[in-house]
């Protein structure tokens, strides 16, 4: 009667290690995916909240949107009246809409990585025409990217 050699073969050890690595990899992948999901949901909510504000405010300044579009989305056109217009001062409608636009741009810059805000109108920005507003930002790459290399949401509505 002969005794076989005790212990595991190299193949068995390698397979066990492989299983261990796969298990750990699975945990890390789930972890990563959940982190991305929560981060993305948070970012999306921030963007939607800004949209919600715009949806309430911009129609009140519909006549000034053509003027706002002509400024090309630059914040440099906003006069030094940001606080003045928001703290009781009387401002004309163009200044008011410019101040709001700057306010939303700041919100997006603060809360969304590389966040940007833009809008265009069909033909002219008058009552009845379609307005396109887009917020885009850099977010988790594992999520579906819908605007080239950006995440974005677009709102279109007739004022």
């Amino acid at each position, binding site marked *: 009667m*002969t005794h076989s050699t005790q212990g595991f073969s190299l193949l068995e050890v390698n397979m066990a290690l492989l299983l261990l690595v796969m298990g750990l990899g699975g945990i890390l992948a789930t972890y990563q995916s959940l982190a991305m999901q929560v981060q993305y949901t948070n970012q999306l909510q921030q963007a939607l909240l800004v949209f919600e504000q715009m949806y309430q405010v911009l129609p009140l300044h519909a006549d000034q949107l053509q003027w706002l579009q002509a400024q090309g989305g630059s914040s440099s056109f906003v006069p030094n009246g940001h606080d003045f*217009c928001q703290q009781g001062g009387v401002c004309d409608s163009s200044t008011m809409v410019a101040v709001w636009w700057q306010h939303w741009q700041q919100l997006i810059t603060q809360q969304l990585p590389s966040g940007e805000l833009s809008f265009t109108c069909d033909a002219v920005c008058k009552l009845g025409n379609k307005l396109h507003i887009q917020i885009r930002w850099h977010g988790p790459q594992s999520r579906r990217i819908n605007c080239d290399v950006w995440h974005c949401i677009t709102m279109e509505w007739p004022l």
Partner: protein
Amino acid sequence: MTACNVYKKSPASGYSLLETLLSLALASVLLLVGSFLVQAVSQRASWWITLSEMIMVRQAVMESISSLGKQVCQPGLMLGGVDSWRWHMDKNGSCQPYDIRFNVNKMQLQKRRAGGRYTGFIDAVSSPKVTYGVAHNNHCNPIRWLPSVSEQIALHVVILRLQFAVGIQAPSPLYDLPSTWWQEQQSDKSKPSWLWQPTEMFIRLPCVAAGVD
């Protein structure tokens, strides 16, 4: 070769002491790494739950306020203070005055029909600030924002700006809070602290002049 010779040449069975000790050490290291991993994942998961809860609570609060705003009817606002206001709301087909206020102590948004008692309808809100967008006569675009309005000016208010914080109770986070959030420790240390996230929203009031309502 005899059977006896074969038995003598076979290697010794079992592990040596060194092998056993090395295996135990390796197993300990693996267990240690595994337990750190589980701990880190569980802490992170708890933080995600907090974040998700905040997202849902904020959504719910804003939808409730928004649905309240949709019930406002002509002539809209009657009076506006720093953290309370009176406006007309549709109640079973008739337009009736309602008072709305932030109750800071109870962290609630409350409402009452004129003459009635306040009841809370939204919880977990704090740091309220209301601003009123006032338009020119017969216009619907606000030209100034005031922190409070008299009965006369209230007639020209076309939009309300509500700034407040939405809160949830959560254990002290082990991670950096998002830049605008803050934490409020309860006096009783055994209770979970409050996490607050500032937010703002607008309520557009009925305005006939430019056909916006």
